[in-house]
């Protein structure tokens, strides 16, 4: 092994005998093999002939889509590799057998959570400042969805952590832009507003921004958040804070809010950004693994809630994907699981799971796709045209 002086800010050099593309292919093949062994799924290329999607307009009108970003990025060795499978029992044994699993999703953009999530939501590799509360530079999936399908603002929601994500719902691009996108709910702001002056019992739910642990901006809630609580979620402050006391992490709070939104607003497009796994930036491996296990449970719980909700059962497609991976143990410039800064193959290569309505069950696809392909795929499924997206629809989903 070699070591390198180079560390560009946070980037580094992997002195590997293999090129990045070959490492990415190996990661993809490994995921396929692990899934086949653990979840009994089939290889998708043999099943490409008939599309399971129903294309009728009436079906599209009822179609609901939920996207979960798998909180902060997790590596194969803690998830889909044999040694990691104990951390994701629900994804592996409950969701994977029902899903189309894409083993080779690459993110060619900037590996910061806000900018990468914005890229996922626009279908363009955004270049905005990861740590600024600025809107995405291109129209979001929510704007395309609402404008093309003439949907009200109540039909597209984002549940997100607070690091700048309050602007993720819409761009400033004409003819889209302000007022045309998703409504954004920030559960931590909500809780902060609801517990003004007495947050002692809730501090564990207000953890913020692991990406820059030295800089944790204060979270402040406001009247607007309290209105959301009472008018939209139909929750009294007392009920909300009582329930919050029973939760153990910010992502649990997010899923609680998401379920409440499903119950009260039943949005057709719901986007949930998980964040707990990013505690990895603190360098504590045990906390990172605990967060993966929690996220695994929360994804399965949310899918269960979909099945139990008459507005969603039978007409919902769920997408679960990390915004990107994390650094390999073997990249000399990184520090393994702790960050996602090297730009190596492990940090750029992830996976996506799609399940529910219109999705083939128990199938694995190896063909490379990019994270920016999600938006055009959602457009094709739901019937809108993301014309500024630079990705392309995933043919296996059409």
């Amino acid at each position: 092994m070699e070591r390198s002086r180079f560390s560009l800010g946070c980037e580094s050099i992997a002195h590997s005998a293999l090129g990045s593309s070959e490492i990415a292919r190996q990661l993809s093949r490994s995921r396929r093999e692990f899934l086949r062994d653990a979840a009994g799924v089939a290889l998708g290329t043999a099943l490409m002939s008939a599309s399971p999607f129903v294309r009728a307009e009436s079906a599209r009108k009822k179609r609901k889509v939920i996207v979960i970003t798998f909180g902060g990025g997790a590596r194969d060795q803690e998830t889909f590799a044999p040694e990691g499978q104990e951390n994701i029992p629900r994804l592996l044994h409950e969701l994977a057998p029902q899903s189309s699993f894409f083993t080779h999703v690459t993110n060619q953009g900037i590996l910061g959570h806000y900018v990468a999530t914005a890229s996922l939501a626009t279908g363009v590799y955004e270049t905005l400042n990861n740590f600024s509360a600025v809107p995405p530079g291109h129209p979001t999936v929510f704007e395309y969805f609402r404008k093309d399908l003439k949907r009200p603002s109540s039909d597209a929601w984002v549940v997100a952590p607070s690091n700048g994500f309050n602007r993720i719902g819409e761009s400033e691009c004409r003819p889209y832009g302000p007022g045309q996108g998703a409504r954004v709910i920030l559960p931590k702001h909500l809780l902060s507003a609801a517990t003004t002056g007495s947050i002692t019992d809730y501090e564990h739910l207000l953890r913020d921004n692991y990406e820059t642990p030295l800089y944790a901006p204060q979270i402040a809630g406001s009247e607007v958040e309290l209105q959301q609580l009472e008018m939209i979620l139909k929750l009294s402050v007392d009920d909300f804070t009582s329930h919050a006391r029973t939760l153990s992490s910010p992502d649990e709070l997010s899923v609680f809010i998401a379920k409440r939104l499903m119950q009260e607003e039943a949005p057709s497009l719901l986007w949930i950004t998980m964040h707990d796994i990013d505690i990895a930036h603190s360098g504590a491996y045990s906390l990172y693994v605990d967060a993966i296990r929690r996220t695994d449970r929360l994804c399965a719980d949310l899918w269960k809630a979909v099945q139990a909700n008459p507005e969603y059962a039978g007409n919902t497609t769920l997408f679960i994907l990390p915004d990107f991976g994390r650094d390999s143990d073997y990249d000399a410039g990184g520090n393994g699981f702790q960050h996602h800064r090297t730009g190596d193959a492990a940090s750029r290569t992830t996976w996506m799971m799609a399940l529910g309505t219109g999705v083939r069950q128990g199938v694995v696809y190896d063909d490379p796709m990019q994270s920016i392909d999600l938006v055009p795929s959602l457009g094709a499924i739901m019937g809108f045209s993301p014309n500024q997206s630079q990705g392309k629809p995933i043919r296996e989903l059409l």
Partner: protein
Amino acid sequence: MLPRDLKPEHFAAYPAQAKALMIAHLDAIRELPLSFLPSLLREAIEYDFKFPAERSAIERELANISSLSHSQSIEWFHGFTQLSLSPALERSDWINLPAQFVEQEAAYLWSTHQLDAFRKAASEYGLRLAAAARPDPIPIRRWGIAIIGQGAPPYEGVLFRNLRKHGTYFGRVKPDNGLALLLSAANERAKLHPAPYAHWYVDGGQSAEHSSALTCVSYKELEPTRAVLLNYIQTEIKRPGMGPEELRTHLAKLTPADLGLSGDPVLGRFQVKLLTEGSGTQIFSTTFAQWTAREALRRAEALTLVVRFAPRQKQRPMNELLSNASSKIELDYVGSLIDADMGSYYHWINQQRLPGFEQSSFLVWLEGQSQAIAIAPSLPRGAESNSEIDVAKLISLVVG
């Protein structure tokens, strides 16, 4: 400004030895592309406060660059010259603020999708340099020792999962006097092969009794320094306009004196960087120990490195951890053991990145208990020993 315009007076603000070094190689560094040079200056500007291994590496690299013909120089740096940088980067004070330049360059390369090209150029350069400017052979086989699980209850899970295939697992270690024996063995090596910053003892808690022949860094002893730093951070983040990048720039300017450290200036700077550049080192002792081990190997190329992990505080909200306000700290013993188990794996990986890795040895011991794993050229890989063994015998097996 571009490298070709460099003059000796441009290095006036550099510390004395760094300035002399730059001026001695001025003709050669004028030939270097701007996409490359500041990363070299970032190291060179700190030359006066670097460890001997780092100084040697900088000297070898500069000597190699100076030895290249014009055509060789073009060939070596071709990948870097293909990168385009912004006029703002060219105008920045990359001579005196090379670290800030490199950060801004990184952001620019990410945003212009040139990062992969940079990685490729740097990788090729690194391989060429490693082949052309080989370091001297090391005087003894490198030895890493990780002591994990201080105070942990008996653990039900599997330890050393990542390391087992590389060495021999011992399940019946007699723990008596183990810590003292390991520190004594490290001390013996330091006495037999004395060299500055070559033999280290890192403790994630309060350091145990040890010889002054070992360079020691401990989390507990840096407690006042950490408190000053966390107060500084709290003050800074309340300033209007302060954001993560601005804070990082401010932290990069802190000196040992700013944080109340005195004594050895080289070690002092090293400790400041551990706390200002390491993520999580300020709040979790396990992260501190792991990161310190990484940096002691990467920078000082330690020949002997004892790392003893200690229990870290339980997770609390980040704001609370950073405020350092709570009077009663609860410890997470099992979580810390898992952190340390992974930390010891990273210790070994970082050791294997250094020259002589084929002959190096490594030992991880679950402190006060009966499990250990030993890696050495003489020991079988992926093996298990069920024989009872004491720590002294274990040491002799690894480095005997």
